[in-house]
Structure formats: C-alpha cells, structure tokens
C-alpha cells in the first residue's frame, strides 16, 4: 500500500502522508502556482511537478528529498525549426475529413506540460513529457535535457516533416479545448503508456487526434483508432479527430488498455489494435475524464461518470464511481461514502489513481476521496483543497 499521495492543484502541490492509518496533508508547496500534474518517479523517488504559470510559461520542478525542497528543472523547449499547422476552433459543421485549404504555419512553443511518464527500470534516466501543442519530449538523463520526438511530431497525419519544408499531407489533428487558455486551439498529449514487457512499445493519446503506438522506441508511430467512434463527427469512424480523455494500461496484462473518451468508455484486449465501445449509460458509465485499471486484471477498471457533454457535473447531484470486472460488459455504481446530493464535482483526467486495492480521486470542487477496498467504500480526505488537476500515489 502507498503511503504518499501527490495532489496537483490550481494553487500548488499538496502532499498527503499516511500515518497511523490516516492521511495528513502537508502545507502547500509552490503556493499560488497551478500544478497541472505531479508524480513520483518510482525508480529514484524524485517528485516531479509540472507548473502551469499563467504569466511565466510552463516549468518543471523537482524534489529529490521527498518534497522538503524543490528546484527548477531545465526547461523543455521546442527545437529551432519546429513548426505546426495552425488549427482554429471548429464550427458546428466541422468535418475532420474535409481538406483544410492553404495551411498556416506557426513556430512551436511549449504551452503546457500536460503529463510526465517514467521509463522502465532498464532505462533509469528515461522520462517522457507530453505537451500542448502535441509534442512528445524524451529525456535520457533524468530531465537534465529533453529532445522532441520528431517521428511523432513529423507524422504524416500532422502534415509531415515541417522542419524540411511545407506540409506534404493534411493535418488531421485537431485542437483540444484545454489549449484555449493559451490563446490557441492545438492538440495535446496527456497519456503515455509504456509496456512493462518492452520499453520500446509505447502508446500515447492525443486530444484531439486519437491513440498512436510505437513498437520501435519512437522511431515510427501508427494510429490505433480502429473501433473508435466520434458521435460529434459526420464520419464517426474517421481515422483521426478522436478525443481520448485518458488512456491507461494494465501493468500485469499490458495488452489490456482502457480509454475514457469524449464519446464514452472504450476497451481493448489486443494492445489497441481494436477498441470496443463498452459504455453503459444506464449504469452511468459513459462520459467522464479519468480511468484507472487494476494492476493485474486487465478486465477490471474504474471510471468516474459525469453528465456529458454540456453540463460536465456529477450525474443527478450524486458522486459515483463505476467499476467493471468483466471488460466492460457490466458496470457497478459504487457510492458508499460519496455525497449523494448537491454534489457538482467533476474529476479531471489525471485526478484518479490506483495502488493495489486503494483508489483515490480529487475533484475540481476541491474534494478528495479514498477507498481502500477497490471502490466499495469511500472516505473523504478533505473538502477544501484548491481545484484538483491530478492525483497520483507516490
């Protein structure tokens, strides 16, 4: 069982320690600075925080003494010549397959470091960072330096290699609403899933494009959106334009992947070669942001349903966690210990985590709930935290 929880919040990072069977929050760190993601590297115990300064740009901060002191980590920067084809907010008659006409180019800068992932034990200094506007960065020296993964950045689904010249293909990637805060409408990488059996086998999820897979350590990438459906598109089965909200894998059965998508819950038991829609709206399992997967049983997953798409609040004023143990054929609504009236909480994509039988989630209303029995019963760890962006066990 984990004894540490990291909360990335609108107003800084809050660390909770488990002592004497109860959880105790420490004073907030990075007070006043939005922390959109925070996690602990299990290999060397370094704590990482992605700071989302409103004025001063995205920064990484790290602590090598369990959160007592923090230091600025070297900045992630797009290399000279990194460009992308500008996207604009779609109109109601938006068609992701329609030709986009003459492309407009922009030089790339990091708007947001949305996710940090840690390499395998075989690659001790390897880190990954997913960003808006849609670049995956890789470090092999523990975050001292970062390099843009060019095969993904230059993917033909994005227009080809714009370092060399103008676009050689259409840009099929769309923007994410999460980018609008930065005055742009560009895609973002929020999920990075590394296969524990093979460090060269990685899935990333992009809002709004879909899932891509590499089997050669990032030298080439292939779209993995077979079976996905976009109910907001005139062509729901188009290859690109999907809106994964989060993708998580089962460490013990890595071919089992789960995707909470804008258009519902999807499951794959063949390494994302095929996705299957497993939403059950009648069991309140459809719209939402996060998904957590059991460490050993790839058929068992948890989602936190919300009233989608327009309201984005708890359904009927009551918080619930939905769990499946049979690959999404059936879902149980788990509510013991969760508020069942006047609850308006929404739980964002990185704000649910699992460690063994323990689950924890935090909401934009500043509430944190924890279950030590796989979601059957929940206890509240606090009601007055700042809006919560990420929850990760340490």
């Amino acid at each position, binding site marked *: 069982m984990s004894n540490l929880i990291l909360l990335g919040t609108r107003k800084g990072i809050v660390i909770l320690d488990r002592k004497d069977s109860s959880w105790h929050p420490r004073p907030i760190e990075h007070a006043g600075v939005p922390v959109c993601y925070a996690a602990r590297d299990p290999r060397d115990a370094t704590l990482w925080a992605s700071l989302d*300064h*409103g*004025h*001063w*740009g995205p*920064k990484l901060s790290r602590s090598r003494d369990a959160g007592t002191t923090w230091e600025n980590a070297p*900045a992630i920067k797009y290399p000279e010549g990194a460009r992308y084809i500008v996207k604009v907010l779609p109109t109601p008659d938006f068609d992701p397959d329609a030709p986009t006409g003459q492309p407009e180019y922009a030089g790339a*800068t*990091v708007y947001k470091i949305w996710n940090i992932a840690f390499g395998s034990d075989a690659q001790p200094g390897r880190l990954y960072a997913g960003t808006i506007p849609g670049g995956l960065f890789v470090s092999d020296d523990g975050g001292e330096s970062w390099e843009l993964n060019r095969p993904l950045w230059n993917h033909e689904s994005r227009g080809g290699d714009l370092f060399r010249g103008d676009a050689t293909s259409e840009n099929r990637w769309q923007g994410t609403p999460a980018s609008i805060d930065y005055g742009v409408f560009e895609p973002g990488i929020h999920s990075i899933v590394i296969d524990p059996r093979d460090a060269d086998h990685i899935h990333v999820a992009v809002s709004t494009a879909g899932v891509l897979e590499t089997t050669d350590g990032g030298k080439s990438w292939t779209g993995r959106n077979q079976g996905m459906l976009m109910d907001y598109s005139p062509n729901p089965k188009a290859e690109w334009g999907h809106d994964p909200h989060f993708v998580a894998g089962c460490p013990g059965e890595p071919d089992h992947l789960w995707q909470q998508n804008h258009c519902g819950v999807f499951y794959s038991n063949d390494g994302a070669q095929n996705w299957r829609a497993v939403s059950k709206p009648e069991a309140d399992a459809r719209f939402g942001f996060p998904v957590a997967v059991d460490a050993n049983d790839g058929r068992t997953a948890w989602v936190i349903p919300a009233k989608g798409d327009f309201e984005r609040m708890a359904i009927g004023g009551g918080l619930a966690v939905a769990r499946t143990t049979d690959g999404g054929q059936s879902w149980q609504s788990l509510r013991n210990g969760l508020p069942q009236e006047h609850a308006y909480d929404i739980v964002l994509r990185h704000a649910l985590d699992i460690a063994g039988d323990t689950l924890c989630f935090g909401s934009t209303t500043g509430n944190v709930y924890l279950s030590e029995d796989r979601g059957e019963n929940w206890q509240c760890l606090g009601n007055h935290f700042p809006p919560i962006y990420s929850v990760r066990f340490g």
Partner: protein
Amino acid sequence: MTTHLFRFFPILENQELTVPAGSVAEVLHAVDAISPGFCDYVLDERGALRRHVNVSINDTIVIDRKALSDHVGDDATVYIFQALSGG
C-alpha cells in the same frame, strides 16, 4: 520589474540594473546574464514575449513582441510587468 519575478529571482530584488543601450531583447538577455533562466520566464523559446507579459520603454509599451527589436535609448528605463488578462 514586477515583484512577482523576485520570487523566482531573488537576486534581482531592490536592484536598479544599468545595462548598455540596445534592443529590448539585448536588455533582457543582459538581465538573464545576471540571473540565469530569467528570459525563460518572460520569453518563449522562439524569443517572443509571453502572452501575458508586457514590457515598456519608459511609458511606451513595446511594439515588436516577437523579436523585441524596439530600441532602448541611453537613459531609458525598461519596465517588465504582467499583462492584466484576468478578472
């Protein structure tokens, strides 16, 4: 300079820095030489002023936010402050 930046660069607090006249970019990089990393806070990696940062020469907001080529005269003062873009 906005006091918010002193939180990240305490060495700059209560300092009036005198640097050679030149472009705004040159002035900012002179500050960066005193407090490494400073430019990453006010400029993006393309060298453009971040969206919510304003720079003025005396009381005139700089025109070139992309390359910061506006000229800073010998006795001019450069101010760095946050753009008020919220409620």
